[in-house]
């Protein structure tokens, strides 16, 4: 594995290997001394053409915990605003000696272009591209789900939290992904990865927010959240952020901004928001995930976001371990020569 571009790049064994490596990394993060010398002297560039808080900080933390040098590059305030192309930006970074490029870009496929165009010889890690893929988010979601639910709801409670589910997949688990699937790279990556790991995924969204072709994905699609909760009793429910900034219509920041896909925020919340009532419909062992940032009161109520079932902050913690694992697996080996 030289690049991580899509959750579809990973087969079952490779995905489990990444998750197991993440578990080892997580075990080191409980120590007083959290830094490992593993990637000393390597340089990781965070190339962010789109705003991000947690993904960029998470990658930066992961690289620093492995002793790599980190260069942060944000498109705002750089030569990109003077019109520099992706190719020139990437080659400039290559000339500075980067070993890996972590890229987030608003255009779907930009990381693939960077990895396969021959512009640079570094490893490329996709940190979210347009409405396409966000593989490390899917990995950290799978890791969080496995930690809580693998081996059935009656997992071994004496095991260290980091070591639960080691070597296991997610076979037999039912997972509902609810909300703005249309604009969500998180949903696309998760459908692929969770299916690879044997879970049964159901997408729940209003018809306007289900992408064309979703029927061909390895998952079910439903338009009714209450029915899914009552009939399927999902083991985990993942709420997606309503991505108003990608919804265009009704420009502005007022309450009606970007609601061309549903009549009003209130109606969306009634039909697809996770509140205390829907939380009670879930089985006792079920967990609530959200990739963040949350729109409290829109797709998730404060009751649900702050409940004991919510593992949203654990997802952030696990994100560092998963990204450490990805950086380790891509960089801690013989350097492939670049022709």
């Amino acid at each position, binding site marked *: 594995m030289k690049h991580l571009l899509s959750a579809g790049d990973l087969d079952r064994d490779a995905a489990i290997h990444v998750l197991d490596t993440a578990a*080892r990394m997580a075990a080191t993060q409980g120590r007083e001394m959290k*830094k*490992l010398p*593993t990637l000393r002297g390597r340089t990781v560039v965070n190339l962010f053409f789109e705003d991000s808080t947690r993904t960029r900080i998470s990658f930066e933390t992961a690289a620093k915990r492995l002793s790599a040098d980190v260069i942060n590059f944000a498109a705002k305030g750089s030569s990109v605003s003077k019109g520099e192309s992706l190719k020139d930006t990437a080659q400039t970074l290559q000339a500075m000696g980067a070993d890996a490029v972590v890229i987030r870009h608003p255009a779907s496929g930009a990381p693939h272009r960077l990895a396969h165009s021959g512009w640079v010889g570094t490893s490329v890690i996709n940190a979210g591209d347009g409405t396409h893929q966000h593989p490390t988010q899917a990995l950290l979601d799978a890791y969080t789900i496995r930690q809580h639910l693998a081996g059935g709801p009656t997992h071994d409670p004496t095991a260290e939290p980091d070591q639960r589910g080691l070597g296991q997949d997610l076979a037999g688990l039912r997972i509902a992904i609810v909300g703005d699937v249309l604009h969500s790279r998180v949903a696309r990556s998760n459908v692929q990865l969770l299916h690879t790991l044997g879970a049964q995924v159901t997408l729940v969204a209003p018809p306007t927010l289900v992408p064309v072709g979703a029927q061909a994905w390895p998952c079910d699609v439903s338009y009714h959240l209450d029915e899914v909760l009552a009939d399927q009793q999902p083991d985990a429910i993942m709420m997606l952020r309503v991505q108003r900034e990608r919804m265009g219509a009704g420009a502005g920041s007022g309450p009606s901004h970007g609601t061309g896909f549903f009549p009003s925020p209130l109606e969306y919340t009634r039909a697809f928001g996770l509140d205390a009532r829907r939380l009670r419909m879930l089985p006792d062992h079920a967990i609530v995930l959200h990739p963040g940032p949350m729109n409290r009161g829109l797709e998730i109520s404060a009751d649900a976001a702050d409940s004991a079932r919510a593992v949203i902050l654990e997802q952030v913690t696990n994100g560092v371990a998963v990204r450490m694992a990805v950086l380790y*697996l891509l960089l*801690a080996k013989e350097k492939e020569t670049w022709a």
Partner: protein
Amino acid sequence: MSSGPALPVPASGVPGAEVLGPAEITRALTRIAHEILERNKGASGIVLLGIPTRGLPLAHRLAAKIAEVEPDVDPSSLVGSLDVTMYRDDLHRHPTRTIGATEVPADGVDDKVVVLVDDVLFSGRTIRAALDALNDLGRPRAVQLAVLVDRGHRELPIRADYVGKNLPTSLSEKVRVRLSETDPDAGPQVVDTVRIDGGER
């Protein structure tokens, strides 16, 4: 390292020559356990950290032997594992290595006497990595090293405190340790043995 020409295959059909058999391994571990107790004046304050993969079962066997002599010692609280993968200096020369588990007994390693346990002592680089890894876990009072086989060819100023067998080897030979805990499929003639093959003796 090239494996060199193979030794003549013995009548048993198993390649290589047996250096230590199951009984000899047991005897060597019994002696090492007593040496550890003698040198440290008992088992209090001792932590045995096995280096995965095969150092870990050896550490467990040593702890069981120590518990036979010192009845008030709980063998499971004596043993931990110390994975050194992320501290190796040769990561960029090999394909990606799988990371093993690091588990330290509940009391930690601060102010303890840590005995590192490994199967074969060769270049000393694994032990160098282990010392670095240990440094990140705490500050032991002292660190000692126990190995089943010392095959020489050190590349660093490191020596073992407890040695099961000193085994002079050439660089082209391979020393294979097979233990019932880690290699259950090795076959009845190979399990719990140390064998040497390849090269010219």
